[in-house]
């Protein structure tokens, strides 16, 4: 703030003729360069959110139709089997995916933290899934998990004919295959953040723990991991919000099936909007999805703010 004020005050008083116009043009261009990108970016967020929310309260079907119908779309959406299955699945998938990805990521980070040879190569291997699209991940895992084609077929062909690994085609197990593919894709992300956290720790802290005679396991459990607890919160929240937004992965892996057994909130939105052409209901489903994100993110932002204030005071 002070910088801008000082600069404005230090501006020389009066300049004549062409200079005035040049200066005015410069100021106008500056204002434009500051405001146009920001106005578009912020406006996009605010206006589009308000717009979809508005549509969710209207009778829009194939085309937007701004007749107010109150909460009717919400009642209709929440009563569908699609919606109910999607949110049960979100709880199963969300918890399974987040906890397993964090556990695996933490294990990888601790292992890599032991001054191993080839750390760069290993890190590259654990992180590469993150560079690949969910469509590719979903497609490839749909082959590997396909009982007639992938892992089950291989083990059967090797002679163990009784082996079964057919979750992909079992409606009560298919959601777990989404967890497998999701964890494969995201564990590296958790690893990267945990590892960066461990590396940022004070060397003296580690030395003090070693002098106290703590073994490596105890040292991580009692000293190092508790010190990086805020990273656990961050990883948890980022993974959980990405779980809520999961769409391409499940589209490519199961397509929501068998039947509707792997429906997720994003697929419900898409189904209402573009397969049934019910824009009002689709928007209601989107707003409900946004609300579930708010439930996850709002406490996180409050928590971050609280930490910043505490750090500022310390």
């Amino acid at each position, binding site marked *: 703030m002070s910088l801008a004020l000082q600069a404005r005050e230090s501006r020389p008083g009066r300049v004549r003729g062409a200079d005035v116009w040049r200066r005015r043009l410069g100021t106008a261009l*500056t204002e434009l360069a500051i405001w146009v990108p920001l106005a*578009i970016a912020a406006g996009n*967020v605010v206006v589009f959110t308000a717009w979809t929310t508005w549509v969710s309260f209207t009778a829009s079907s194939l085309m937007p139709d701004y007749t107010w119908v109150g909460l009717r779309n919400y009642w209709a959406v929440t009563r569908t089997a699609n919606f109910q299955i999607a949110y049960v699945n979100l709880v199963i998938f969300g918890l399974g995916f987040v906890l397993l990805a964090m556990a695996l990521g933490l294990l990888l980070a601790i292992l890599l933290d032991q001054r191993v040879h080839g750390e760069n190569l290993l890190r590259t291997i654990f992180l590469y899934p993150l560079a690949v699209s969910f469509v590719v991940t979903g497609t490839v895992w749909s082959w*590997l998990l396909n009982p007639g084609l992938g892992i089950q077929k291989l083990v059967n062909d090797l002679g163990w004919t009784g082996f079964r690994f057919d979750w992909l085609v079992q409606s009560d197990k298919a959601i777990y295959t989404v967890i497998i593919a999701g964890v494969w894709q995201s564990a590296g992300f958790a690893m990267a953040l945990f590892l*960066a956290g461990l590396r940022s720790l004070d060397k003296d802290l580690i030395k003090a723990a070693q002098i106290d005679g703590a073994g490596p396991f105890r040292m991580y459990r009692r000293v190092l991991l508790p010190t990086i607890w805020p990273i656990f919160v961050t990883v948890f929240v980022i993974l959980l919000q990405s779980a809520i937004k999961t769409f391409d992965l499940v589209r490519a892996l199961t397509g929501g099936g068998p039947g509707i057994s792997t429906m997720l909130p994003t697929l419900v939105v*898409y189904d209402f*909007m573009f397969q049934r052409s019910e824009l009002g209901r689709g928007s209601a489903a989107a707003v409900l999805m946004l609300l579930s994100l708010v439930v996850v993110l709002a406490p996180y932002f409050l928590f971050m703010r609280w930490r910043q204030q505490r750090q500022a005071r310390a």
Partner: protein
Amino acid sequence: MKWSRVIIYALLTALALVFLVPLGVVVVNSLRSSQEIAATSMIGWPRHLTFANYSQAWNKFCMAEHCWGIEPYMLNSFTLAIPATILSTMFGAIAGYSISLWRFRGDQLVFGLVTLGVFLPEQMKLIPWVVVLRDLSLMNTISGLILIHTIQGMSFTTLFCRNYYVGIPPDLLKAARIDGAGFFRIFRRIILPLSPPILIVTVIFQFTGIWNEFLYGVTFTSGGQQPVTAALIALSAAITSEPMYGEQSAAVLIAALPTLLVYLFGGRYFMSGLTAGAVK
């Protein structure tokens, strides 16, 4: 070597192999004939090496009534991802610069709103974009997708650039301003020369994100206008009747290659981008 070291290396090697299996399977299968895959399983060593899958997948493969392989869709993705990456990074750099170093009334509020865009799900923006693209006659065009990714990418690029630029000491700018340098000259002469690290990270993330994006591609384009992620789904849907896993593996690998290469060559920046902001 102590036992504990042996266990650490054994675990790491085993996990690395598990992580590599999907990539390895696709690479190997892209070199096997579809008949061979169908007769055995997806996981197996090729009996006869064949490179025919690649030429098939690139420009001969039939899907959705067209027999032109994935070449046109790859070109679509490049025509989409390159301009959208450059534009969103450019605007993000300017926005991040004005928020962090050229402070003004309400800057924190605006920054907060822009940042929220990072978390806002795409589903909340689908209907407005349908209307906007229709009114601009950009429905089913790559330009429409470029517009979407440029505007929406700004949330992310502004956040990244702003977080980097707040680290620039204000004194550096003070002198320039006393000398009479304005917004643009300071940006060009002082900020841009300091920016390569953050611009590289931003470009890598934008390119990867836009290349891999699926929902907008599949919603706003169809047929020959689709980016490659959308076309891959159409491809898997098209071949359920007659499995062609060899060709499909080659197609999947080709589609994943650009972002994989970006990751391999920019891995260091990729990592620093991931951890930026999270570890503080």
